[in-house]
């Protein structure tokens, strides 16, 4: 049997995109709970998470891909749109779980809308699962194919909220703890200031600081952080 075992395209999963290092804000408890049940094979066959950029959808989808013991496919549509949709979607339904990121980018691409619609149906027919992430409200994605739109909205839909400033501090501290270091709220604030919008950038800076402080054998303070980043620039 040709079971798809790994994902593809030029994209690979980030090793550190897991559930254990995803900080869950109070308002995201329910979507995360739903996602966790979904990954265990419970409930409806399709789940759609949506939220604005930086809320962690890609992280969550990759975390699901990591966690699943069954054949899983991860498909970031943004990077796949230039490829032939029939090529990309062919046989994907053999995977027990397909995680599709950026579904809002389907809009206006008739070929992709149709191919994705068929993929949805094939997955259903096979009893396999589909996890989708959208960066706009799915009800507002201007899809040309009503059949597809209704299937998206017929999925169980959850909104994942972006983190507030305070929550970002918590998230950074938690991420640091996972790496085995402890950072103060001040350091966290400093990092957030350096990467105001992008959560991913925030975590990259944290990694950078962690590495440097380890090399320098110094505790990570705001002063040190500033020094490291300025030196680097």
């Amino acid at each position, binding site marked *: 049997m040709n079971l798809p075992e790994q994902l593809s395209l030029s994209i690979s999963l980030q090793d550190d995109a897991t559930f254990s290092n995803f900080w869950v804000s109070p308002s995201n408890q329910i979507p995360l709970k739903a996602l966790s049940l979904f990954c265990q094979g419970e409930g409806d066959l399709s789940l759609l998470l949506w939220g604005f950029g930086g809320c962690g959808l890609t992280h969550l989808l990759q975390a699901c891909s990591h966690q699943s013991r069954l054949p899983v496919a991860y498909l970031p549509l943004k990077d796949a749109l230039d490829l032939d949709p029939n090529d990309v979607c062919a046989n994907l339904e053999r995977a027990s779980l397909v995680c599709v990121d950026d579904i809002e980018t389907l809009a206006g691409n008739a070929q992709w809308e149709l191919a994705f619609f068929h993929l949805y149906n094939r997955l259903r027919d096979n009893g396999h699962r589909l996890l989708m992430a959208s960066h706009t409200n799915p*009800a507002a994605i201007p899809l040309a194919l009503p059949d597809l739109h209704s299937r998206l909205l017929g999925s169980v839909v959850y909104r994942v909220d972006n983190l507030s400033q305070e929550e970002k501090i918590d998230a950074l501290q938690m991420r640091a703890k996972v790496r085995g270091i402890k950072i103060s709220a001040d350091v966290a604030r400093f990092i957030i200031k350096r990467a105001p919008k992008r959560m991913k950038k925030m975590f990259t800076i944290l990694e950078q600081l962690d590495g440097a402080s380890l090399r320098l054998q110094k505790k990570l303070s705001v002063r040190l952080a500033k020094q490291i980043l300025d030196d680097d620039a």
Partner: protein
Amino acid sequence: MSDSIWERCSQQLHGELSAQLFNTWIRPLSVDTEQGAGLNLLAPNRFVLDWVSDRYLRRIEEIVAQDQKGSALCPVTIRVSAKRQSASQFRRDPATLRGQVSQPAVFGTHEPLNGNESFDSTHDLNAANNFKSHNSYDSNTANSGGIKSTNNSNDNTNNAYDANYGNSGYGHHSEAPQDGSKVFRPSAEQLSLTSPSDAQINASHFTASQMGHGHHLSAEHYSHNTFGGEQSAPITTNEQPLNNSEPYQIPLDSHSGHSDRRPYEQQGFRSDTPHPQTVGKRLEKQDIEGGLAHRSHLNTGFTFKSFVEGKSNQLGLAAATQVAENPGGSYNPLFIYGGVGLGKTHLMHAVGNALLQRKPNAKIVYLHSERFVADMVKALQLNAINDFKRYYRSVDALLIDDIQFFAGKERSQEEFFHTFNALLEGGQQIILTCDRYPKEINGLEERLKSRFGWGLTVAIEPPELETRVAILKTKADQAQMILPNDAAFFIAQRIRSNVRELEGTLKRVMAHSQFTAKPITIDLVREALKDLLALQDRLVSIDNIQRVVAEYYKIKVSDLHSKRRSRSVARPRQVAMYLAKDLTNHSLPEIGESFGGRDHTTVLHACRKIKELLEEDADIAEDVKNLLRTLTT
């Protein structure tokens, strides 16, 4: 003369009924010109007959009476036409028909058999190549999705299609008529000549078509059909592509008709002779059946029991129930059409499940039209088209979803056409769903469109509020959740588009209740559907309703507020009030206030008036439908 009376009459009805009702009930009626005085209508089957007699006959009589004012009385009669007996036209001599009833096996023993033999001998040449080509195809497609596959042997392709099939011996069917629809059109004259009763017609139809039907039709179009037209992308990604740029003749076996269903022994082969066909079958088994293995599975959750009936779908439900009780009978095919997410697929599965319950070993095949196309392309590549045909023709019931995706796929239509005919002749049930009325599917061959209307065509419409509430209550019950009426109404008011979205929304609400361990209330629904409602609220404020309505009727918003009472303004105003009442939670006085400070009784009157007009005036109904769509996405 009765033709023109009917034309005027149906025009009148067209104005009075919604498009769907008209399409379902009035359009299938035809005039029997052979009968005596009066207007004698023919209904395609008993179902339509009963329904029309029940609900529309009186109105038809009224219109006809009006039309014939002054002249002699014109009685209206209606009876079942024997439309599906049209295949009787294939027989060259109508007089021989009855004689053939008892000789169903005439077909397999002469001319077509020669075709078989020549085909199968070429098939033999191909058998060895088959394996390699399908193997490489498979591994390539598995990879193309960016999935690592373990099977990667890709060193052989098959370029020999045309060489092997160029002379497969079906050229002698050139006598086949080019215009299939013409051939199949029923003639009332012939029917009344040869078919005094329904049952008798069916019997004669069956054998008559077995006589000559299959090989007549099969010759059509094949010579100019090319493979490339519908090739799906995976094939083109093949590193060593199959030779698909060359137009090649479709490997059509001349026994492509129903003779396929018969075992080879009956066709003149002895079972102990090793037959190329069986070799072929073994080779492609893993691939074809890999595709088949998952396709016949009906969704066991989609039953009649779990289907919630309402005004919008009772017709579809009634028809599906009929089919489940009498598969392959006179409602063949059952054609269910309607917008997305309204339960077409559910009904289809419900019939399948009911059939299985009655006959557990029945072969019920459900698939999406895309699957049919993909399987056919694959079968062509593997030279397994015979197995493909045989498979589809061996089923007890064939359920194909979303048939509109056949549009523009000529080769699939061709193949489906033959399958369709074979099944119909064999008395096997066909159920199709589509997003529109058959005649309105662009890119679909006429002969298919007309066949789709041979059985029973029913529409499913979007559920009205009461049905939506009933659906929510039922689904909550099934999930053993308590959904209070007010919460159910709240959801049903907000999610109007279709059942699928309604159910998706309910699942979300129920999950929210479970996760938070709180009972379902309006507040909880609001909380659970926050993002959805926020988006909607932007759309369905009274202000926005007025804007949208004014724009739709090409008047000014200020006209809606004004005291003007001319029809051109008053009607849109009433529509806007009706929508405001229907879509928002504002009270009647509040709504009146927003329309130039009008009294709440004015709003009440407007709502009643529009409700009334929705039933009577097709234009208003259309307007409201369009406006609702704009306002609720």
